[in-house]
């Protein structure tokens, strides 16, 4: 099953986001800060550009032998005492986790931040089965209390004010709480610490899975990833199949660019390498380790138009630089993954029909491709998606008709010139102060938020022809 489409159209969601002045300010501050930090981090790191190329090549090379790398990962996880599960759909993945919870009698599951478990809506499934899922990343904890979704891949509660957070905490804990980030963080530490110590199950995602060693790698700043993978008696990691990398040597390459792209840190505070269940002599570590390998639309993109998006590291850099994301924020996108890469991932998970509007939520300026640590050509795939939306006749019919006619005109110069002449006459009633500000019928969609330049009194071709004549004289 794919994700439920948002109840309101994109245009309406964007309009609401644009009216939210706090959101707008928060987005500007956060994204500007992330952009600056990222630039600084790479500026100080002369090898950065070469390592980005390396990282991209490793991802592509891994995909070319994905079956072998996954087999090695699976064998090595099993050799270290872990169990591997295979989930084609979100339902498969949720059922697998629920079965483990049931068998081990788990009632409370602590979670570290994971987009993969967001994408399969695992929390809803756990709740329905009587297992309490508790998000422990501070941002995720906040949005869980607010019953919302993350609005940024790495800063999920970017849209909340400290006042709103204090209110949420006050409601949860039944006492007055000061709206001070320091105080709020201290309260969250105390609340969640208790839960870490009594939780039965830890659930995480995986930033990488190292095939050579069967190691799951988690990158966090708060330390909750370490708690989740070390304190409960069962640890379940949910990992998209594309997260496998061949070796520890490859891992070092990715670590060198991931945090710099995400937050501008040289490394995130904690990079945790998890090698299965507790070993003899250790005081901590789970008795059981489970790895759930997730397909959910990824496998068919190995040979699909979105293959490049399988290289995504989920760093969030493309969100920060996107002029559309910076205006409307993550929620307006309406699905789990926001931003430019989010549109591609939404199409991957839910099919191209789900992004018939979203595919246009990009100016195709290319800033995302520049910022991407593995240089994913996001604009190219957005154009591909737009094309498939048209070809599959998912696009609204007036749009298809208008662009169909326009396309035909462009292919026939004589017809084009004729149409230009006709247009010059037909546009007259609509031109006001040098621009077409309102069009009738369904054409009005275009002019609702922007002007259309009128056809010039003399077209470029006419002027060019005249210039050529003057030259000859």
């Amino acid at each position, binding site marked *: 099953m794919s994700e439920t489409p948002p109840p309101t159209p994109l245009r309406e969601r964007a309009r609401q986001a644009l009216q939210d002045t706090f959101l707008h300010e928060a987005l500007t501050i956060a994204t500007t800060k992330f952009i600056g930090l990222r630039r600084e981090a790479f500026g100080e790191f002369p090898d950065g550009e070469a390592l980005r190329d390396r990282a991209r090549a490793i991802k592509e090379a891994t995909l070319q032998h994905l079956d072998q790398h996954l087999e090695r990962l699976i064998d090595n996880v099993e050799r270290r005492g872990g169990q591997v599960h295979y989930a084609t759909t979100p339902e498969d993945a949720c059922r697998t986790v629920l079965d483990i919870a049931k068998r081990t009698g788990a009632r409370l599951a602590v979670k570290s931040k994971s987009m993969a478990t967001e994408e399969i809506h695992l929390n809803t499934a756990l709740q329905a089965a009587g297992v309490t899922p508790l998000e422990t990343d501070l941002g995720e904890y906040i949005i869980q209390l607010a019953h919302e979704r993350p609005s940024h891949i790495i800063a999920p509660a970017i849209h909340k004010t400290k006042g709103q957070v204090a209110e949420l905490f006050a409601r949860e804990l039944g006492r007055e709480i000061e709206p001070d980030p320091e105080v709020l963080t201290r309260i969250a530490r105390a609340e969640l610490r208790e839960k870490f110590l009594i939780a039965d199950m830890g659930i995480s995602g995986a930033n990488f899975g190292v095939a050579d060693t069967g190691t799951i790698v988690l990158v966090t*700043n708060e330390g909750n990833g370490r708690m989740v993978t*070390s*304190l409960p008696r069962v640890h379940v990691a949910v990992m998209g199949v594309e997260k496998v990398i*061949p070796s520890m040597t490859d891992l070092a390459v990715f670590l060198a660019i991931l945090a710099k792209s995400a937050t501008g*840190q040289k490394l995130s505070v904690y990079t945790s390498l998890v*090698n299965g269940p507790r070993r003899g002599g*250790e*005081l*901590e570590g789970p008795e059981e380790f489970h790895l759930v390998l997730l397909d959910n639309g990824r*496998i068919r993109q190995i040979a699909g138009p979105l293959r490049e998006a399988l290289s995504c590291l989920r760093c969030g850099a493309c969100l920060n630089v996107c002029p559309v994301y910076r205006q409307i924020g993550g929620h307006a996108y309406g699905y789990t993954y926001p931003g430019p890469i989010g549109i591609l991932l939404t199409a991957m998970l839910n099919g191209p029909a789900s992004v018939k509007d979203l595919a246009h939520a990009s100016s195709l300026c290319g800033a995302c491709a520049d910022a991407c640590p593995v240089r994913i050509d996001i604009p190219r795939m957005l154009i591909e998606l737009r094309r498939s939306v048209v070809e599959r006749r998912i696009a609204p019919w007036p749009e298809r008709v208008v662009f169909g006619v326009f396309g035909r005109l462009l292919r026939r110069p004589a017809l084009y010139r004729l149409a230009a002449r006709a247009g010059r006459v037909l546009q007259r009633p609509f031109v006001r102060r040098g621009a077409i500000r309102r069009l009738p019928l369904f054409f009005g969609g275009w002019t609702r938020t922007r002007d259309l330049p009128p056809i010039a009194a003399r077209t470029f071709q006419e002027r060019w022809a005249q210039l050529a004549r003057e030259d000859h004289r």
Partner: protein
Amino acid sequence: MTTRAEFLARIRAEMGRAPGLFAAEVSVRPTRPRERLALLRRELSERWREDLERFGQEFERVGGVLHRVSAAAQVPDAIARIAAERGARRVVAWHGDALGLDVAAPLAAHGLQASAAPAAEVDADERGRRRALAADADLGVTGVDLAIAETGTLVVVSGAGRPRSASLLPPCHVAVFDRDALVTSLLQAGLALEAWHDGPPPAGRGASINFITGPSRTADIELTLTRGVHGPKEVHAVFVEQGLGPRRG
């Protein structure tokens, strides 16, 4: 439920239809990584002063505090000083064999309640008791398996006598290291990871390796940087100029 065979068969079917976007190779793994690491360490031993200086700069940039003592015997005094400044009373530490020095007894002599982790497997009840100790501790003492100069990172490998919680649960983490742990770059740390995973894991090796780059932090509320959200609020590194004793693990 999908089986391994079905799952991989679907992947192979798709791979058969995809030519690949461009010619690409994965990284070349070092052959005989353990020998290569030993060689690298010998090379690095010439330049530990530069690496330590860079480590200090980067470590302080991420919010760590670097201390230097000349001999291993001075480490407990340094830890006791850090504890006294914070009013810390309860200390959990790695076992002396894993640390290269026994700190529990000397710290007790300073009036602290210090307990070192057991060197070998203990039963579930004892593990539970130890966990409660770590959860209540004010300060945790660990060794360091790598100190990465370029990033100011401490790498700790878990195992027998090397509990994960000592660098995680107490609000203050003190890591003790010497020049043997220093490497220049993250890519060199990659070589160490290859070496550590070469062949079956030795007895007493744990299942967790952590790269720690400063105190636990978050900026999830209005991007205000706040320390100590789940892990330690403070991280100290004590460098021992003349080196620690032989270490196990």
